[in-house]
């Protein structure tokens, strides 16, 4: 086989040209027509969160938020975290019928000019039966009917309090006239999948570059957005603070160390709420971790304040033994707080039959050892906890593994203690049930305490907010006594912004509890 030099050089040139033309083609797609109008730029280090239609955005908070600018829900949370009307202007619970009645707005138009009616809401609920929507569980909805063209009554199989937050406040309503023709919404990314009722319309989405461009919907029923264009651009995590400083972006997240510097420069720094927790999990199927008293001993013996100060450099809130973060509206302080008290911890361990022999605890003349399983992100925390346990006389080793391996071993109960973390503590307190009863690795999978079990079920069925709050206070009290898992801390994150738009973190998070400071209402006049 003889190939000349020229052929080889030619092949190389062609390859290079091919790569260049590929790049060029990408850019032709982004033809947008607008002059120097008000553009608001948001910097993001991941960039691509999926095609922002309800079924195609990635199942993460930022993906949902990008979709929520285009699609509306029946109700939505405002700056104070209370529900306000979106597509529904009024709603009420009819106890006798176990049903919610939603009175819809009459002045709403889809982006393509069609009118929005009750038929769209009914269609959406129906569509979900065929094509489940990951963010809203509608299994407790028995049926829905239209009382007139703009009133919908949703009958439940039984009273279900999270319906407001997790369905009415989370489920984007789909245009019937379009989605009735879409049979595989998970793979459908044509532009008509993006016809919503929201304050923005999508102009461009570029997966590779991780950019989104939105234009204001001037006919928005809650008022015209105060900016004409909104864009998301992708910038490396380390460079985001600079992008905000030099005006490349109007807002972006910043590391805790830069907070003071940004404030000094006249920028506003938003402080997140605390819906994410680092958690110590116990193997509840193995002694002594299955023993409540032992878990209490560890709760007294671990200095959570030290974790906040050292591992989080003060940028976190100390974990509540009742699981719900202190800045959450459902938090109750009437619980055992387990302030650091190694003496008490030792006493409890003694009661369990552990004897201190040459600095270390023994039971039945066998040395007592414990292994903490964790991943890189929490290895600092694990070392601090190990120190505390060593002080109690518990000989502790730390084993650090890849995060997914830790999760897999947690699922299989193949551990003694695990330190890992998860979010989702912001929205409807239904999250309490998921994190105690569900069979996932983030859940404590604790079903021993019948009282707790029954209270948890009751809180889901209690529509009255005050009664529900009382139930949750009781739940937190019991949880803090039983400690099926121990929340160590809730980290704080920061977002810097200029003065162009007054962004805010919505208390309790957006929709089902997304802790992102991008509430679409903040863009309205």
């Amino acid at each position, binding site marked *: 086989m003889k190939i000349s030099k020229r052929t080889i050089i030619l092949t190389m040139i062609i390859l290079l040209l091919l790569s260049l033309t590929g790049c060029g083609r990408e850019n032709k797609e982004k033809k*947008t027509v607008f002059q120097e109008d008000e553009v608001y730029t948001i910097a993001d280090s991941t960039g691509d969160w999926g095609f922002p239609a309800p079924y195609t955005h990635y199942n993460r908070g930022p993906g949902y938020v990008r979709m929520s600018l285009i699609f509306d829900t029946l109700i939505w949370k405002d700056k104070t975290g209370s529900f306000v009307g979106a597509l529904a202007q009024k709603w009420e619970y009819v106890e006798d019928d176990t049903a919610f009645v939603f009175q819809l707005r009459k002045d709403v138009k889809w982006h393509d000019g069609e009118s929005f009616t009750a038929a769209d809401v009914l269609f959406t609920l129906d569509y979900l039966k065929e094509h489940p929507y990951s963010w809203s*569980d509608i299994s407790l909805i028995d049926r829905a009917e239209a009382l007139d063209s703009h009133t919908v009554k949703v009958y439940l199989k039984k009273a279900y309090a999270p319906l407001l937050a997790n369905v009415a406040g989370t489920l984007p309503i789909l245009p019937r006239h379009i989605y009735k023709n879409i049979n595989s919404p998970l793979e459908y990314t044509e532009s008509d999948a993006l016809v919503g009722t929201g304050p923005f319309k999508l102009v461009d989405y570029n*997966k590779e570059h991780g950019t989104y461009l939105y234009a204001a919907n001037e006919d928005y029923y809650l008022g015209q957005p105060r900016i004409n264009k909104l864009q998301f651009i992708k910038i490396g995590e380390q460079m985001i603070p600079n992008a905000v400083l030099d005006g490349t972006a109007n807002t972006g997240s910043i590391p805790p160390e830069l907070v003071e510097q940004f404030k000094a420069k006249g920028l506003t720094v938003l402080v997140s709420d605390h819906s994410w927790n680092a958690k110590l999990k116990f193997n509840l199927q193995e002694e002594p971790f299955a023993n409540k008293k032992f878990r209490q001993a560890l709760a007294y013996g671990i200095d959570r304040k030290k974790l906040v100060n050292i591992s989080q450099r003060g940028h976190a809130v100390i974990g509540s033994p009742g699981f719900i973060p202190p800045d959450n509206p459902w938090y109750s302080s009437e619980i055992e707080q387990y302030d650091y008290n190694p003496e008490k911890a030792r006493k409890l361990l003694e009661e369990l039959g552990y004897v201190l022999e040459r600095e270390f605890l023994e039971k039945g003349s066998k040395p007592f050892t414990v292994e903490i399983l964790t991943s890189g992100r929490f290895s600092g925390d694990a070392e601090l906890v190990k120190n505390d346990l060593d002080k109690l006389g518990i000989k502790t080793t730390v084993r650090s593994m890849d995060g997914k391996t830790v*999760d897999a071993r947690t699922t299989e109960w193949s551990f003694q203690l695990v330190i890992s973390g*998860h979010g989702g503590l912001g929205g409807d307190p239904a999250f309490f049930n998921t994190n105690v009863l569900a069979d996932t690795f983030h859940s404590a999978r604790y079903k021993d305490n019948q009282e707790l079990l029954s209270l948890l079920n009751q809180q889901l069925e209690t529509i009255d907010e005050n009664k529900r709050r009382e139930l949750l206070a009781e739940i937190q009290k019991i949880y803090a006594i039983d400690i099926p898992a121990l929340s160590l801390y809730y980290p704080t994150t920061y977002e810097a912004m200029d003065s162009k738009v007054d962004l805010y973190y919505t208390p309790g998070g957006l929709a089902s509890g997304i802790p992102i400071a991008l509430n679409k209402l903040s863009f309205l006049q």
Partner: protein
Amino acid sequence: MEKQRIVDYLIAFLIILSLNFFLPRLLPGDPLTAIYGDDALLSITQEAKEDLAAKMGLDKPLLEQFGIYLNSIFKGDLGYSYYFQSSVQKLLLGTLPWTLLLIVPALFISTILGFIVGLESGWRYGRLFDKRLLTGFMLLNGFPNFLVGISLLLVFSVSLGIFPLAGAVTPYAQLSGIRLLLDILHHLVLPLTALVTAEIAASYLLTRTTVLTVLGEPFILTARAKGIRTVNIKYKHLGRNSLLPVVTRIAVRLGRMFTAVLLIENIFAYPGVGLLIYRAILARDFLVIQGVLFVVAVVILVTNFLLELLYKKIDPRVIEHAY
């Protein structure tokens, strides 16, 4: 001889195909969790999960999945990613050109520059010029890629503001033609420099060592005795003979560059396959991992093949000694 080579390549290709399938699946964690996220924000029924698992073929035995994989590869179908909500081909077509735009020039520049400097350095072996260069490049060789990238960004983008902070084009700037090309080049300068800086030392060090060996060969002495001009000795006699290992290494370096580019793309938020595979691994998106590795493997195999042909051109002895 040619047949034997082709069989060799086929064997390598098949081994790569199998590793490509099984290695990602040995990673702990499962792709469904990645798609659905792992926090309490979502409420997904078990039924929906099983539905998706079936769509992704995860419910089938591993060997059956392997069969489907081989079958679709030979049909040229790399599959559909439910995490990225896009076909793998489309994802690759969107990202690979950008990575090639980084890697190909970086490979050329670092090889040529490294070769010339290495040759000059080796020619002046033991002198101050050589010593300084050697120290400099050794230092550079030990420098982690990301540090080079971050330093470049800090100096040229943050402090001086000459180059953009991120990306491959200015988002939504409505550029076309020559202005778009300039914009792309403007964004390319820093990541390309970072990649060249990370790569040039290897090529320099290799050339220098080879030059030192070749310098001792009798034909150099003969050439000098014949009174041939220094430039000619350096580039025609010494250069051509020192080129061989450098060319061989190109394919190896190309493979390594695909890993180096992962970090560079992350730092510069450059939209290439490096970033794609990084996200795919985090998401345990087997199809995308497979797809990217498959294409990278093919690119490397093809380059290897081309280089082998090139090698015969540079050094005719290879033909005589082969098989």
